[in-house]
């Protein structure tokens, strides 16, 4: 039976051995790191900026109830619709119903992870609608029939040669792998979609309560076309995206750009507060905001892990994570990859099926170091593990092993005996030359490692024999 955990292990094994993949990702992330380092140095005090962002998000998340209502009221005052979706199904249903009611045939989407989370595109396609991803990276992975590889850089795993041959196969008449040329090909293709679409779907990087506006950030300007050309604009956002004041963006925008892509500020930052008003020249006739809960309220109730809702989805923790760089984004099999995915997914989709992601980390803490809102990511992975154990969701063999281990460690005699036995076993495995073979009981270790040089005595034995030893 395949489970998310068994799939993860299978794909992780494959990707871990894929040196070409590792090299592509290393190169992309080196490039990113250099840019981020340059940008961080431009802050007077990056650490202070992180602290302030943390404060902004903490304040907003702690008063989520108030700010969301304020946001809703302002949007309604301007003639927009706000729909509160408790689950993914609720959100999907609202949007598909709307699309059907309005006779929508073509939809343009700008990049949005939350629409991936609710599996929106397949639901719309099932109803016979054409859905175009208009962010270049998303456009590429959509052509490949793949989910985004990375929450910020969806096509990070592809080289331009691969992209050129993909375009040639799917779009025809492509004869160069020059990036500028390839962008031109995508632009030509998307232009048609923009002009024929009846509905534009976007996410929101922030929901700003005080003016009642959504803030969208892109580098390609595609979100502006998605929100300006079609008759209907639907924005989908997790409820945790709320911030209280417009002023907060003065810090959050540059911090998001720095951590996300190493830019001083992202190219296009748009604030939208409602549909087109009488006398305005552009903008949609209808403006809908879908506020998604999907497990977030439960996380809000968890005082220990509430701060996970501070995440601004910059992707910095993915880039910093040596496990992500080794197994790649698709291996996770989740909307959110890397450390934030490992922390968040068990909350959104259940500890039962997704606890393995909290275990698939060496707890090195590189993610926590780079998080611009200072989420204590690697310690939350530890908390998820503790929760998995206390909810009795771990295999009985492991539970029994730790009971036995504890019993051994509670007495120095038993401990010494266990150590002696362990060293004996290692020497034996080496002596009978089964090291690393399927017969080797230590194979989980020796499959990839030479056995350590096993000393004949423990430290304590040597210490006792020769006190001080110098």
């Amino acid at each position: 039976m395949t489970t998310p955990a068994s799939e993860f292990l299978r794909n992780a094994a494959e990707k871990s051995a894929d040196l070409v993949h590792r090299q592509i990702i290393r190169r992309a992330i080196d490039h990113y790191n250099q840019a981020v380092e340059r940008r961080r140095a431009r802050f007077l005090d990056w650490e202070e900026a992180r602290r302030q962002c943390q404060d902004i998000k903490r304040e907003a998340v702690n008063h989520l109830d108030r700010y969301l209502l304020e946001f809703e009221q302002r949007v309604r005052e301007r003639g927009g619709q706000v729909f509160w979706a408790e689950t993914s199904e609720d959100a999907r249903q609202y949007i598909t119903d709307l699309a059907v009611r309005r006779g929508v045939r073509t939809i343009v989407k700008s990049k949005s992870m939350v629409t991936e989370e609710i599996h929106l595109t397949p639901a719309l396609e099932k109803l016979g609608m054409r859905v175009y991803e208009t962010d270049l990276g998303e456009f590429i992975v959509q052509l490949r029939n793949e989910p985004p590889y990375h929450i910020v850089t969806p096509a990070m795993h592809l080289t331009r040669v691969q992209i050129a041959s993909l375009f040639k196969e799917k779009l025809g008449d492509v004869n160069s792998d020059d990036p500028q040329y390839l962008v031109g090909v995508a632009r030509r293709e998307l232009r048609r979609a923009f002009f024929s679409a009846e509905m534009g779907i976007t996410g929101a990087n922030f929901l700003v309560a005080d003016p009642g506006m959504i803030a969208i950030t892109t580098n390609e300007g595609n979100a502006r076309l998605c929100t300006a050309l079609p008759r209907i604009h639907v924005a989908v956002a997790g409820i945790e995206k709320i911030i209280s004041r417009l002023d907060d963006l003065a810090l959050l925008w540059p911090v998001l750009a720095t951590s996300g892509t190493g830019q001083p500020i992202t190219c296009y930052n748009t604030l939208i507060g409602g549909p087109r008003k009488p006398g305005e020249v552009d903008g949609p006739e209808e403006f809908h905001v879908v506020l998604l809960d999907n497990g977030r309220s439960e996380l809000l109730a968890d005082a220990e892990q509430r701060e996970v809702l501070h995440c601004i989805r910059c992707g910095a923790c993915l880039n910093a994570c040596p496990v992500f760089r080794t197994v790649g984004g698709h291996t996770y099999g989740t909307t959110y990859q890397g450390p934030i995915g490992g922390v968040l997914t068990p909350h959104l989709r259940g500890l039962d099926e997704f606890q393995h992601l909290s275990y698939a980390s060496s707890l090195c803490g590189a993610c926590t170091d780079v998080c611009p809102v200072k989420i204590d990511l690697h310690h939350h992975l530890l908390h998820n593990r503790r929760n998995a154990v206390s909810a009795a969701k771990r295999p009985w063999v492991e539970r029994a092993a730790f009971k036995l281990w504890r019993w051994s460690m509670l007495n120095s005699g038993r401990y010494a005996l266990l150590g002696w036995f362990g060293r004996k076993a290692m020497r034996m495995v080496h002596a009978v030359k089964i090291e690393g073979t399927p017969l080797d009981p230590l194979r989980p270790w020796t499959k990839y490692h030479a056995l350590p040089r096993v000393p004949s005595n423990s430290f304590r034995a040597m210490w006792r024999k020769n006190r001080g030893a110098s």
Partner: protein
Amino acid sequence: MKKVALFIPCFVDQLAPEAGLDVARVLRRIGYDSEFPEAQTCCGQPAFNTGYWQDAKPLAERFVRIFRKAEAVVCPSGSCTTMVRNFYPELLAGTALCEEARLLGQRVFEFSEFLVNVAQVTDVGAVFPNRVAIHDSCHGLRELHLKQEPRELLRHVRGLELVDLPFSEDCCGFGGTFAVKFNMISAAMGDTKAGNAEASGAEFLTSTDPSCLLHIDGVLRRRKSKVRTIYLASILAQTEEPARTRQPGNSR
């Protein structure tokens, strides 16, 4: 002579005893007499990191009782020091020993941290004429904030050439039970580290954590690499006396 207690992590005790002995040797040379409380076993980190906090708890309490009288505790591992200093207070929260654990944590020091920040010694009179690179072990680096301490010490070693390790702050992939549960990922990360060690031109790779070195060493030898690993204290223990050229734990 001033006194310190040795906290020898279980894997050092069982698999790298020379690392522990070298710590005592260096400490003695700078005027500290070591005692080794023999009741100690494991600090509980493997259980704690795997989520078995209830199984780690009695071991934490046991540790506090064993070391409660010590003025200073020295440990040849940034990771196990982190367990006591940073995680015991959380693990023992709400128990009678919590506050005592917190105070004890302030007196437990990783070896290089103790030398440089407590004893304030950076030159221990060591001689090691080799090219050496430092791997920044995660717990030492990110939980204890030790970066310059081992470098300070190595800069004062006669004949030693300190070379830069590319991506020295990247995790080597050990991570305790992670290395067994997700051995293919762990090994690939170790392989990346090994490749960087080779590219650095170093003859030896050292670190504040023998656990990382145990893992990296296993990967290096599987690769038939020329680079060898050596724990920091084992470099610092080497003097010009001829009998001092062994490697830690080289007998089978």
